[in-house]
């Protein structure tokens, strides 16, 4: 069996896998919602959901009170958000790896992560953008992520058209500038009001701020982006062959690369806005999908999105139950799980990241 091109090579196998993962995702959601620090009966949890969705059962018992609130306003929103953010990060990771033609890329390479951190730092410590309302930290972080990726595109286009190497170099340079400015502000501003802790907490990621408005939007964006990038599988495949081969196969990649990068940074920006910075998902999930099903984006895109959603959902459950009376920041957990997995993949001889020699 040749793992390099995927274990399940035939078409029916990958369609079956998509179906299986969808089923797994739904079961994960139904299972995860019964887990939490407050002990609730499984039947009650489902009755609350059924009441909220379809209006059945007694609204005196299931429509109000702490049990109802825990299920409907605490557990479920963050699980839905975990699905949306997980899919978005995995998807943008797969796309970024194609854009820069480099298997080590992730959503936070190309400076997007540092841009978001800088935005958050400026917002929290200096109050920049506070006129934007109570969500201003997330909005400024989003703007930071987006502006930096625009800057990367502009910089990579200086002196000739952007290519994958110039994009990586521009991303690294802007990333360094952003972290330097963030650190400068952190160092100079002598804040005592817990703002430093807020910055740190924010850069570690958390799904605790989930609410129905933002998580449904996040989920919708993720589903739409998955469908869009799935429809773009041919161009994504051509990106891995490089500009010259792509031209001889009828596609000029230049404009597509910019379009995909903007869409991917929207995905990352919105994930950052709703959940802070969550590392490693965008790097590890596309690699896992590639190991199982090969590089073809026709399979890689939907499978990455589904795996990402399932992964982050369970990661969030772990965050809630691992420490007693305290929640572990999800960014810490994903790095703690993600990095060893990544090392395992690297050490496995059969999966050479396609690098070969």
């Amino acid at each position, binding site marked *: 069996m*040749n793992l*390099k*091109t*995927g274990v399940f*090579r035939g078409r029916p196998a990958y369609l079956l896998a998509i179906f299986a993962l969808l089923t797994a995702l739904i079961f994960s959601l139904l299972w995860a919602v019964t887990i939490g620090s407050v002990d609730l009966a499984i039947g009650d949890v489902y009755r609350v959901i059924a009441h909220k969705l379809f209006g059945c059962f007694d609204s005196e018992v299931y429509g109000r009170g702490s049990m109802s609130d825990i299920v409907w306003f605490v557990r479920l929103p963050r699980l839905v958000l975990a699905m949306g953010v997980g899919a978005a990060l995995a998807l943008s990771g797969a796309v970024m790896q194609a854009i820069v*033609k*480099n*298997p080590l890329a992730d959503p936070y390479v190309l400076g997007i992560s540092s841009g978001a951190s800088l935005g958050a730092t400026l917002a929290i410590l200096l109050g920049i953008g506070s006129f934007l309302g109570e969500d201003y930290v997330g909005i400024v972080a989003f703007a930071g992520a987006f502006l930096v990726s625009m800057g990367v595109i502009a910089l990579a286009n200086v002196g000739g058209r952007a290519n994958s190497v110039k994009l990586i170099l521009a991303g690294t340079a802007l990333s360094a500038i952003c972290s330097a400015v963030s650190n400068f502000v952190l160092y100079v501003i002598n804040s005592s009001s817990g703002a430093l802790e807020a910055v740190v907490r924010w850069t570690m990621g958390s799904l605790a701020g989930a609410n129905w408005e933002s998580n449904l939007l996040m989920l919708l964006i993720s589903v739409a982006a998955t469908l869009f990038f799935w*429809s773009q599988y*041919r161009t994504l*495949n*051509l990106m*891995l*062959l*490089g*500009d*010259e*081969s792509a*031209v*001889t*196969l*009828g*596609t*000029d990649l230049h404009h597509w690369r910019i379009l995909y990068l903007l869409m991917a940074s929207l995905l990352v920006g919105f994930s950052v806005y709703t959940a802070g910075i969550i590392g490693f998902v965008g790097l590890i999930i596309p690699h896992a999908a*590639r190991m199982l099903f*090969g*590089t*073809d984006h026709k399979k890689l895109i939907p499978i990455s999105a589904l795996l990402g959603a399932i992964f982050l959902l369970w990661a969030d459950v772990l965050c809630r139950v691992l420490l007693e009376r305290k929640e572990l920041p999800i960014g810490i957990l994903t790095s703690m799980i993600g990095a060893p997995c990544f090392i395992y993949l690297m050490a496995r001889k059969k999966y*050479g*990241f*396609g*690098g*070969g020699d």
Partner: protein
Amino acid sequence: MKIETKAVEALFGENHILKGIDLNIEDHELVGIIGPNGSGKSTLLKCIYRVLKPSAGAVYLDGKALNAYPYKESAQRIAVVAQHNYYNFDFSVREVVLMGRAPHKRALERDTAEDVQIVAESLRTVGMDRFADRSFSTLSGGEQQRVILARALAQQTPCLILDEPTNHLDIKYQLQLMDLVRDLDRTVIAAVHDLNIAAMYCDRLYAMKDGRIVGQGRPNELLTAEFIQNIYEVEAQTMTDPSGNLHILFRPGI
């Protein structure tokens, strides 16, 4: 398909790589481009397959300027087997060849049974059908080259451009690949290193030196000992075997 270049020039910074190239390639001709390293063969081919834009002059396909074709349409007319095919990611052989169908696809179009069949046929033509499920990167250089040829065949174009296609191949596969290309009966432009291969297969040759065409004609007319001495600066001797094939023998330096 007819391919012409008119006064094509290429500049890289200060370097004038092509200094006005006029080619005229007729339908179904197999044309070889020969010349020493750095003479501009690859650059010229890249201008024709659209990876480079000429800094002056233009390329014409069937009388229409290449720039006037959308990329999809030029890729429906010209397929390319280039020198380097190093990929950072792993595709299966079948996936690589299936990409040859890309220029025939609209944005949301799915791969059809016909595409699958064309891919299988192309792989059979180059003798790589047994390798369809193998990972491209695990193949040898010669096998990879044949897969890329299969991809070019799957493009089903009237013209094929080969940029030193036999570089990584041992002699058996060099001959096999050129046999295959000759039997395709398409317009073929090939940059060829090996003068004996050029003499054996090409209908006509263009010889390049220092960014200029310095001669053209049928191999047995063009490739004289004197001409080879002129452009390659080596001593050579030519002979024609009983079946009428031209052979070029080289003499080592003293």
